[in-house]
């Protein structure tokens, strides 16, 4: 979880400078993947875009988990309503919504992805919370009249562990959600470089023109998918 959270800082990094007179350069020692049409170093762009995608996914996963925790704590009576919300995959709703709105900004994507992913995390969080709620420790806390701040202080590390266990799946949902939105031209605008944005730009020419940046973006997506795949159990 920590390495994923470390990428949050990438959201604050400035954009690369433009140099249109050095656009479209091929592979060379100074630019290992060449430059894009606006003269930005392709390798740097790939690294920055990937880091921003990972940072955005981390921010989104944190929001989804916070909302999921709230739903799991409060939503016992609304089990069936949450199951109805879960039956719609986040992207099935988000893609047409983004098209209707003419594309979504970074903040709107963050909020909507977090909101739509939260019901999917609720069952796993509820299972963990219910175990805690039925434990003697929780009964003791209530009998002894412990205050909320003191309960939070004691149980925050345990709560963090539970959240951390579900963080990778929430993170992947957010990562692929944003990448798909951006690759289809419905995500954050050109001001926010991301893996999806790189794919959207490079995909049309990949088939005809060997573009190192496009292939590298595809390889980055595949690498991220494979490193996040569950291991042999």
């Amino acid at each position, binding site marked *: 979880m920590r390495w994923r959270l470390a990428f949050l800082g990438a959201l604050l990094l400035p954009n690369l400078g433009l140099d249109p007179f050095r656009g479209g350069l091929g592979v060379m020692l100074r630019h290992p993947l060449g430059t894009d049409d606006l003269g930005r170093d392709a390798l740097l762009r790939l690294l920055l875009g990937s880091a921003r995608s990972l940072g955005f996914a981390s921010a989104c996963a944190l929001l989804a988990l916070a909302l999921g925790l709230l739903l799991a704590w409060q939503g016992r009576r609304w089990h069936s309503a949450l199951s*109805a919300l879960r*039956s719609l995959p986040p992207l*099935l709703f988000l893609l047409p919504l983004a098209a*209707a709105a003419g594309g979504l900004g970074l903040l709107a994507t963050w909020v909507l992805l977090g909101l739509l992913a939260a019901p999917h995390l609720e069952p796993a969080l509820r299972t963990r919370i219910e175990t805690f709620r039925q434990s003697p420790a929780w009964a003791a806390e209530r009998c002894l009249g412990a205050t909320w701040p003191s309960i939070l202080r004691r149980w925050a590390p345990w709560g963090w562990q539970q959240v951390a266990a579900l963080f990778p799946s929430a993170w992947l949902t957010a990562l692929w959600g944003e990448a798909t939105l951006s690759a289809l031209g419905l995500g954050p605008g050109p001001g926010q470089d991301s893996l999806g944005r790189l794919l959207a730009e490079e995909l049309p020419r*990949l088939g005809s023109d060997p573009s190192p940046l496009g292939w590298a973006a595809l390889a980055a*997506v595949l690498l991220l*998918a494979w490193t*996040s795949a569950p291991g042999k159990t």
Partner: protein
Amino acid sequence: MDAVTKRLAPGLLVWAFGLALAWGLPGSVWKGATPPPFPWAALFPAALAAGTLALAAPLLAWAGGPGLASRRPLALLEAPPDLLWACLLLTLWPAAWGPPGTLAWLLAFLLAALPGEVRWLSQAMPSEYPFPQAWGQEAVSRVRRTVLLRLWGRWLAARFPIWLTATLVLERVLGLPGLGTDWFTRVALRDRPGLALWVGVLALLWLLAQPGKGEEP
């Protein structure tokens, strides 16, 4: 009100709200765009894709058993997002063959969906150790068959929206009209009747995927 209806009532309320929202949206009239006709031509390929998946995934899960759920190669095949399969297909498609058509879409769809579905079914199967493994191979395959037959209908209903999402992404990247695009366009254009029909279908699928009487929710 019996226990099942009582349990499902909040979910039905959510769908009723979705339906009301679909009807209450400002319609396409003021936007000056007419809703597209339903893509009847895409129904056969969609049925073929769903049919292939509905047969191939349970067959593979039956052959592999619950052990498949922890196989690393299957997890690696399942891990890439739908987007990557669509991009790879578009990139590797020989230009001389013209733009990728329905067959290419079907291939990409099966590549994107089949590993995940096999894993989903394998994970839902009960462990076979010590029984029915101790009773021999015939008992094992009989138990697998019974479990999969019981799961089949509900699995289809529960997974259809996931397949719709996969096909939507593939259709948008490959530029093919289909069921996913139809849902996409009706939301984007705020076509009230079409959208209400889609919400009704999704609600019905949700209802079909719910556990019945005497089953744990």
